[in-house]
């Protein structure tokens, strides 16, 4: 198990290095930060001074190795816009993003799992079709459309909730619902499919035949076996906790990591972009690791298979 975990961690590290390397190359090939940050009207001397000051006048390969050298010393660089350490800039925004994404995840799980199980248990009835119709709408409508429609209805027309900003808990309601609706729709569809597959298995019939109540069959036998594909999706969502609100944060003027990322990419604020990517990479990889471990916990057969492979 230790070997397995270590190998996953090594792969995770390689993934993060690849992400940062790709971002490093692409960001530098698609725009000179000096022109983007200073604007098109600044004099040439200003651009030269900026490039010199930030080391952008050095060969790309030199910049690359210096950057990784600095990371090895724990220095992720500074923002080109205000000179603050990039890590501070990024970490300042993480709580704001989590304030949206964590409640949205809970919303996803409760609504999505409930709706998916309920639809599967009422297969081919009007309840099933209604739930699936709503879920199709949920995951096909883009999040920015969903956000704007909710704002139009609840902020502009009904004036029940604020249309944007972050001044109070009420400001978080519409963004959380916007994200939650979409995530819940995805989970509901996966849960339904997984449940239907499991409910057709012989061991479910056996459990029913030996006299267990239908509720007990579903809870003890169907749900755990249907959890594997759903866990994969949930893992994805947990991995997206940090980066998953880019569009919604823009629509609702929520000052989180997504807004910071959009601005930093547009401004080629290199250190900030790369710090965010490292954070996203780590979160994604960590979430995947947790899901892998959870597979073994949910399905002991996988644990045994993994152990035998590790030997």
């Amino acid at each position, binding site marked *: 198990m230790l070997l397995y975990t270590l190998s996953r961690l090594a792969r995770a590290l390689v993934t993060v290095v690849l992400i940062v390397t790709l971002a490093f190359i692409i960001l530098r090939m*698609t725009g000179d930060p000096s022109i983007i*940050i200073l604007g098109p*009207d600044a*004099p040439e001397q200003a651009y030269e*001074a900026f490039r010199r000051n930030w*080391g952008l006048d050095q060969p790309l390969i030199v910049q690359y190795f210096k950057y990784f050298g600095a990371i090895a010393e724990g220095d992720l660089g500074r923002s080109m816009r205000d000179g603050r350490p990039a890590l501070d800039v990024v970490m300042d925004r993480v709580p704001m993003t989590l304030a949206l994404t964590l409640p949205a995840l809970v919303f996803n799980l409760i609504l999505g799992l409930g709706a998916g199980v309920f639809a599967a248990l009422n297969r081919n009835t009007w309840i099933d079709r209604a739930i699936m119709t709503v879920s199709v709408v949920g995951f096909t409508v883009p999040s920015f459309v969903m956000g704007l429609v909710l704002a139009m209805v609840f902020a502009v027309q009904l*004036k029940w909730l604020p249309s944007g*900003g972050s001044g109070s808990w009420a400001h978080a309601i519409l963004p959380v619902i916007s994200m939650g609706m979409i995530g819940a729709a995805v989970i509901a569809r996966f849960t339904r499919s997984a449940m239907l597959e499991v409910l057709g298995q012989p061991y479910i019939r056996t459990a029913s035949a030996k006299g267990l109540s239908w509720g007990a069959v579903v809870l003890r036998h169907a749900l755990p076996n249907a959890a594997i594909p759903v866990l994969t999706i949930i893992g994805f969502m947990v991995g997206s906790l940090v980066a998953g609100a880019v569009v919604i944060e823009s629509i609702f003027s929520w000052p989180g990591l997504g807004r910071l990322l959009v601005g930093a990419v547009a401004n080629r604020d290199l250190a900030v972009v790369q710090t965010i990517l490292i954070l996203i990479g780590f979160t994604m990889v960590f979430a995947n690791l947790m899901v892998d471990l959870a597979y073994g916990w949910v399905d002991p057969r996988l644990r045994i298979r993994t152990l035998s492979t590790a030997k």
Partner: protein
Amino acid sequence: MTLLKTLTKAPGAAIFIAALSLPLPALADDRPEITVAVQDIVTSGALDVMRERSNVGARVFFSIFESLIDFERQELDLPQKPMLATEWRQVDDLTVELTLREGVVFHNGDTLDADDVVFTFSPERFGMLPEQMAAQEDGKQLFTSNVSGVQGKVPPPEVAAIYKRSWPLLERVEKVDDMTVRFVTTQPDPTLIGRISRYGSEIYSQQGYAAAESWLAHAQKPIGTGPYKVVRFEDDTILELEAHDEYWGGTPPIKKLTFLVVPEVASRVNGLLSGEYDFITDVPPDQIDLIEREAGFHVVGGPITNHRLMVFDKNNGAMQDPLVRRAITHAIPREAIVDALWGGRTRVPAGLQWEYYGDMFIDGWEVPEYNPELAKDLLAEAGYDGEPIQMRVLNNYYTNQVSTAQISAESLRQIGLNIDFQMKENWQQITDPSDGKRAIRDWSNSAPFPDPVASIVNQHCQNGGQQQTGEWTNEEFNENCLILERSMDQDARKAAFARMLEIIEREDPGYTVLHQNAIFYGKRQDIEWEWSGLQSMDFRTENFRIKGMQ
């Protein structure tokens, strides 16, 4: 305890204590709190007029800073007016003397005097002292450096570069007495008064700057003389200002003024209509009717001191022939663009000039007429063989930019040009000459003070952006640049300007003007407020009132 007992037994103590326990008369402050939803506050992350060069920065800076000379910003011809200087006179060809206004208090409580003005234009402020430049050099280590401007009072190096271009002939600013200063130039500068009034010449507090921990700390909470002072600034989120009650121009009418970043147009409109924002900026023309349909809201705004241009690179392929460039200038349906995309809310100007140039405005000058047949004839005369011509466009950096470019590109195709339309992500890609195919690109030019030097010289002469990027040059044009910039003979200057327009807009086109830019604001209808062609938002007493409030 003993002392307290003694005091309470003293004659009159009971009355004194009772008086303390009474509520104090309320200091009435029923001034409103106003929220302005903007696309962006600044683009550079700093509230520093020499670092921030964008249009959006100009919008907020007028609430915080003031210049010695300003403009009647809500009047169309933008006449100059005294601001922190009450009067000025030309002492000789090299010297202008200004008398400072008495009783001007900075946000930190200091009173404005000549030392502040001298400091504002000092090498120290622009990071040009030897030790500051050495500190900038020390900060070369990539991403691990103590970035200049963060440690110590060392501004970013671009501040000095921008200063040198804004003030090419300024030798020094000297103190005559506590309330009198002189601007001295190395050569006669006919635009000196204009430069003193331009964006970037706002006066800083010497003490306020000295007290800040770093250049950056000051740039995030600067000390100016404007009617509002900075309370909180997070560059991509919020700028919170509060009334500066010692403001020399009268008590500001707003208690708290917040500029909130709301990047999406639809979200800004929703926020206005739901009552969360009192103003929204950068309303595209196609949203105006939507806002005006709602009771209690309307849209104000119009043309500003900024023209949209199509800029040419004369070095590459077919663009080397002036006939091809001339053909392009006759193929753009400018009026159709203004009518279709702007609903007629802006206009086609008289070339790269504005009426507020006053005597320097060239009457009778116009943009090239829209004449596709003439354009086809010019192409035939040039022997154009269908070689692709690159047209580089940013994704709506300017309002209606992509639509304007699409209409222009189709019009150019109609006369037979093979337009290679390329969407670009940023300015570096727009101006990149490395593929040798740069031909047509988008741009805009502003005039920050009322003289042609502010625009045509700054953007198209030897030190201007177009010649610096190597797109275009012309010997005769450049000779006239020097006359326009340095001659004190207004007639000679005007003749030089007229000739420059002929060269760069007709004979050897370096650009062609598309239309005047316009900005629109959505706002509560019960607020009386006028917009400015200088892109600033003015929330002083004389320009802000809520109907029904005292």
